[in-house]
Every structure is written in structure tokens, then in C-alpha cells.
């Protein structure tokens, strides 16, 4: 490398902007960061508690055994998703450290995001499917409605089809994201090989 690259001189001639950060500001910003993560986790748990509460109330109130079973399955699915979220420790980024080379850290983050997106159907969508189908089936085929069978089938097909379309959309978006991350990982690996 030449000793006097003009771009290196230009670079180091940059004037430093006034910047100070006291130790107490650093401590308080770090603590705000931790508190943001805690709030995000609490929001996820609160949303799960709401779902559990609503479907628990339905399971208690609705006499129809199939609908009741559907509500209980949805509650079980929610509990599983909360457990999976807790076990994964969220999908947020790790704190940057100086232990690992940049390419290793970046690759690790990309792989973590890719795996979370690629497996989301298994731990975030699938657990809700049985409960959703039983619940919608229970509502559609409840004897009290007095509807003809065809109307019940249409009602069930429409509700289940809508839910499946939403799930399929979420799945497709996540798999597309995972594929983009795969391409970024491959590009990074290529760069490392030089």
C-alpha cells in the first residue's frame, strides 16, 4: 500500500463534529435499550394473554363441545408459540461484540434471521391451524343454526379458506425474506473466499 494515498489524507482531514457523551448518558442509553427489549417482550406476552383470555372466555361460555374444543386448541397453540418465542429469546439482533470478525458476526445475524423466517410456519403458524379448523368447523356445523348442509359447507369453506389464505400469505412473505437472506449469505461467503 502506498504511504501517501491522497484519499487517506482527505479522509483523515475530516473535521470532528462537537460530540460528547458522559458516562451517565451512556449508562442511561444502555438501560433504555434493555428496557425497550423488555417492553417488546412484554407486549408479545400481553398479546398472548389477550388471546388466551378471549378464547378461555369462549371455551367457558359456549356450550357447543366442538367450538369449546376449538377454543382450547387455539389456547394450546398460543401457549406453544409463547414457549417457542421464549426459548428462542426473541428474534432481535445480538449486541455487537469485538470477539468475532465482522464477516462472522454478520453471517451469524443473517443465518439467525433466515432460520427464524424459514421456520416460522412450523412454530408460529402451524400451532394455530388445528384449533382454527375445529373452531370454525364447530361454529359452521352447530346444529342450532338450522342451515342446510350446503350452506354450512360454504360457510366453513369461506372462513377456513380466508384463514388459510392469510396463513399462506404470511408463509410466502417469510419464505421470500428467507430466500433474500440466503442470497446475502451466499454473497458474503463468496466475498470471504476472495
Amino acid at each position, binding site marked *: 500500500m502506498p504511504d501517501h494515498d*491522497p484519499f*487517506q489524507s482527505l479522509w483523515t482531514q475530516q473535521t470532528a463534529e462537537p460530540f460528547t457523551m458522559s458516562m451517565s448518558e451512556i449508562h442511561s442509553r444502555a438501560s433504555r435499550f434493555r428496557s425497550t427489549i423488555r417492553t417488546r417482550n412484554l407486549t408479545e406476552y400481553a398479546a398472548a394473554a389477550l388471546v388466551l383470555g378471549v378464547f378461555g372466555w369462549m371455551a367457558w361460555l359456549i356450550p357447543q363441545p366442538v367450538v369449546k374444543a376449538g377454543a382450547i386448541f387455539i389456547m394450546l397453540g398460543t401457549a406453544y408459540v409463547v414457549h417457542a418465542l421464549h426459548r428462542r429469546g426473541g428474534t432481535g439482533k445480538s449486541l*455487537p461484540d*469485538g*470477539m*468475532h470478525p*465482522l464477516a462472522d*458476526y454478520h453471517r451469524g445475524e443473517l443465518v439467525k434471521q433466515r432460520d427464524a423466517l424459514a421456520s416460522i410456519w412450523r412454530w408460529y403458524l402451524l400451532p394455530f391451524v388445528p384449533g382454527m379448523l375445529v373452531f370454525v368447523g364447530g361454529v359452521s356445523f352447530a346444529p342450532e343454526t338450522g342451515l342446510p348442509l350446503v350452506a354450512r359447507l360454504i360457510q366453513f369453506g369461506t372462513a377456513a379458506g380466508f384463514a388459510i389464505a392469510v396463513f399462506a400469505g404470511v408463509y410466502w412473505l417469510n419464505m421470500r425474506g428467507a430466500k433474500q437472506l440466503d442470497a446475502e449469505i451466499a454473497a458474503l461467503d463468496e466475498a*470471504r473466499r*476472495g
Partner: protein
Amino acid sequence: MTQTSDQDERYREAAGSFGPALQRLARASEADPDRRRDLLQDMHVALWQSMSGFDGRCSLSTWVWRVAHNTAASHVDRERRRNTGKMALDDIAHLPDGRSVAAAHEQSDAIDRLNAWIRRLKLPDRQVMTLYLESLPAAEIAEITGLSPGAVATRISRLKAQLSKDFQEQTHA
């Protein structure tokens, strides 16, 4: 001495030695002054947090560069996902226009042009280029980035040629 005060002390040492370099990295990573200030603060906080794990297995310089670049990369990634398809107006206004390096030195916006050029690079190139501009040897750049020394040397050579071309070609045109 408690762990926190050790951590504070190590941070002060690192911030004292690398403060201006962190500012240069923030400028090469973020064009918007407010978001740049946020990024710089994030770098300092990340550096302080990381100091609880600094065990001297690598040099302080390598450690600081890794933490700072990882923080900058996360910031750029977040901003890129937020602004997919958009390009900041100041980036468009400050694309290199091909002035010669000597002339660029005389221009008050030469540094902005250089920073805008760096911001357009993809991640590994941006990291290698900013470390090169800080005059780090190729071997240390390789240790920081995890690329092979050969790959670093090749990249630097290619990036320098491209940078010179972008600053000069319009002058000749």
C-alpha cells in the same frame, strides 16, 4: 475496582483513542445528521457494553473496529430495510462527479463526496475501504473483517482504482 468502573475505564481509553475515527465511520455510514448522531451514540453505547467482555485476546484497536463496524452495519441494514427502493436526496446531490483528487482537496464538499461514494458500496467493500482509509495495514483489516489477507489486498486495489476513476473520469470527459 468494581466491574462497572473497570468497564468505564476501558471504554474511556477506547473512546479517547478512537473517538474521531468513530465519527468518520458514522459519517461514511449515515448521511442524515440526526440519524448519524444517533448512530454515533449507539456506537459509543455498544463500545461501553462490549468492554465488559474485552479480555485482551485481540488488540484494543481490532476490538473497537469490530464493535463499531458491527453497530454501523446493523444501522445501515435497518435503514436499508426501512427505505427499500429510496435513495436519500443528499446522496444523490453528493455523488462523486469526477473531479481530480487535487481539485477535490480544494472543494469544501470533497469529503462529503468521498463519504457518499463509500455509502454506495456493499457491506464488505464499505468496511474494507473505511479501514483502509484509516491507514490500517492489510493484515489488521483481514483480522478485523475475517476476509483473507489476499482478498483484502485485491479489494483495496479494486476499490482504489474505482474511486480514482469516479473522481477523475468527468474531468477528462
